[in-house]
């Protein structure tokens, strides 16, 4: 029952098969398809000869070019290190002040530091290093652990409350939750603390502030200092300035006194090279200078 018909439109014969009204033409395969097929196969054959491609039991054909992606990567890393050496050597060798005095080198610090900061620090401290609630602003002069280049370098190296054996450790106690202070005492000390930075709650009386001062001296001064200006050796913040990590309104400060605080910053010693960490220190100091 095979019927060969000629398609009037293309002029080709059908194959004589028919399925529910569908027929097929027996059009020969255009020559161009064979050309491309052969070209693709030839390309592949060439590639197989030149590059590692076919498995041979426990090894593989290495290819005439001897290409190897692992060697290629380590070579280009080596080359990159060589190219960078002109400025990386200077940063590694010279002191902070010396580098800061070299405008060309500082330009490199700014461009490289920006990406380093963006990839490693921005997740918590923000792209502009201005921090956020719970994360310190790095563009102010309020450095919890000291603002000297050496101190910043050490903070980056070991982190805060991190897994590093030499980690910086700091914890503010939960005075309210753990029952160390009763509610009136906490309200008094709150009034006192707010008064230090010139903020007073509407209903705070002079008596309250005075009472709060006594509570502060016995409970808070050991870390925050008698003058409440903070201590960088225990990472206790200055309470007299306008910088607040967890918020400076009455509610936030009360929450802090009630529940305590413990920040975390990871150690970067095993994740960033000494060079990268030094660039970050220089970048941060430069950033602080640039920020009014």
């Amino acid at each position: 029952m095979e019927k060969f018909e000629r398609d009037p439109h293309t002029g080709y014969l059908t194959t004589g098969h028919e399925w529910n009204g569908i027929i097929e033409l027996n059009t020969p395969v255009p020559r161009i398809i064979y050309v491309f097929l052969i070209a693709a196969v030839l390309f592949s054959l060439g590639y197989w000869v030149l590059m590692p491609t076919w498995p041979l039991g426990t090894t593989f054909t290495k290819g005439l070019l001897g290409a190897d992606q692992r060697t290629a990567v380590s070579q280009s890393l080596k080359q990159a290190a060589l190219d960078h050496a002109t400025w990386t050597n200077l940063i590694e060798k010279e002191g902070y002040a010396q580098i800061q005095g070299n405008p060309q080198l500082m330009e490199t610090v700014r461009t490289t530091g920006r990406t380093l900061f963006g990839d490693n620090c921005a997740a918590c401290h923000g792209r502009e290093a201005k921090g956020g609630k719970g994360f310190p602003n790095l563009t102010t002069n309020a450095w919890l652990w000291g603002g000297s280049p050496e101190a910043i370098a050490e903070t980056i190296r070991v982190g805060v409350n991190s897994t590093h054996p030499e980690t910086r450790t700091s914890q503010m106690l939960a005075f309210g939750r753990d029952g160390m202070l009763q509610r009136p005492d906490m309200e008094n000390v709150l009034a006192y603390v707010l008064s230090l930075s010139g903020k007073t709650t509407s209903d705070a009386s002079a008596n309250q502030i005075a009472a709060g001062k006594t509570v502060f001296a016995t409970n808070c001064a050991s870390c925050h200092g008698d003058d409440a200006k903070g201590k960088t050796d225990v990472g206790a913040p200055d309470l007299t300035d306008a910088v607040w990590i967890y918020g400076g309104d009455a509610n936030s400060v009360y929450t802090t006194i009630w529940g305590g605080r413990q920040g975390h910053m990871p150690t970067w010693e095993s994740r960033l090279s000494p060079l990268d960490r030094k660039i970050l220190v220089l970048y941060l100091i430069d950033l602080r200078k640039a920020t009014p």
Partner: protein
Amino acid sequence: MQVIATLTRSERQWALIILLVLFALGLALMAAGRNDPLAGHGALVMIAALAAIFAVISGYFTPEPGDERLDHYYDEPSKIGLVLAMAWAAVGMFFGVWVAALLAWPDLTFDAGWASFGRIRPVHTTGVIFGFGGNALIATSFYVMQRTSRARLPDQLSPLFVLFGYNLFCLLAVSGYMMGITQSKEYAEPEWYADIWLVVVWVVYFVIYLRTLARRNEPHIYVANWYYLAFILVVAMLHIVNNLAVPVSFGSAKSYSLFSGVQDAMTQWWYGHNAVAFFLTSGFLGMLYYYMPKRAGRPIYSYRMSIISFWGITFFYMWAGSHHLHYTALPQWVQSLGMTFSIMLLIPSWVSAGNALMTLNGAWHKVRDDAVLRFMMVAAVFYGLTTFEGSFMAIRTVNSLSHYTDWTIGHVHAGTLGWVSMITFGAIYASVPWLWKRPAMYSTQLVETHFWFAIAGTIVYVFAMWNSGIIQGLMWRTYNDSGTLAYSFVDSLIAMHPYYIARTVGGLLFLTGTLVGCYNVWMTIRTAPRTSTTGAEPALAEQPLLQPGE
């Protein structure tokens, strides 16, 4: 229960037995997994089985179909499958738009765990690939196979088992993701019990296909059936091998893969790429080979080109998966071998696309006037574009720019929106009037509307992702004068933001088109059936079929 009325008495009894076994399995899962999310899935299986048992019982005493049923093809599974496909399309694409919006506005999870990116993203992929694509493939394959073989499905029960069993798998998959059940393999996320269930369903599917082909009344097997059969066979193979895993216990949803490290990665991408090849390409080429010549009323341009493209595609695709792992810990020889096969793959792919477009010669005026045929034409064009792009991106040096960027997402969506969805919508619009015996779709104007929404959505989406991906890739490899990276990762994210918004808009356009399509299909089904026999489908398919042995 119209469907139950098409079953014979003994099939109704078998249905009850199968459902009781399923109910017992659900109960067992629930008992064994009482301290595990698995219990939720046990309950889901039980409820599904119970609902089906009630359905069968309520229709149990309807009169049995007579032998005259054998005079017609059995189209109930195709009808239900097409409706399910449209429903999954709406759900899957809605989740797609949501997950796209989530990348632009991360707060859209509303602080719910189940709505986090990692959970609703696989709901989108499974919903559209397996829910929409899979149901459309099952429905059209039954339809096409019967007509091109001039043989009825071997029985009524097994195709329904395949269809509903498959949808139970999809339901287990997407509900599991939201509960946090996943084996973390892309496009193979469902856990061991769902995987085993799919194997059972799929083997029955394969057997139905072979039994129908074996009883065919045509001397030759039509090309569409080659592709459908390749789809069924290879997907079974891929699914079984990639999902080999050991469950923590029979009471736990968690399992551990048999493969680890680079072997696991290679197995996964051998699976992943061939899922694209045999699920998203082979099956839909089967669809194209039936519906396009049928709708265009033209013969297939070249039988010989069909042969070259079929064997080229099935042979070359198998080797190409390693191009997903360029510049990784995978040995370089595996990468470069995959790359060369990916390049050779372009030729049979373009032969397929060319054969489809040449088939339209002599029918271009129909393409202009008929949105249904235009859906299919655009599908063939996007098939050609995407396969070119795929082979291009498989080249190692190109891949070093495109890998891990949105370019990959753009490429995939050029394929899934432009090719897979378009051919499916074309096939659905062609078959709905044929299946429900309507003169035409409820509204040809709405088909036209859907077409323009779909094409606009695809173009906006794909261009957004091309731009985004190439910018991303370039930003990641740009160095400043000091020889260090010029941009941080966050810088590249900020650059992506406008494109993520554009992508959401593109997806929304595409979803809108799909919803228009759902409405149109629904209204077509609800309108009165035509009385005359002169319809869109040639009378041949309506001819009585009497087959020996039935």
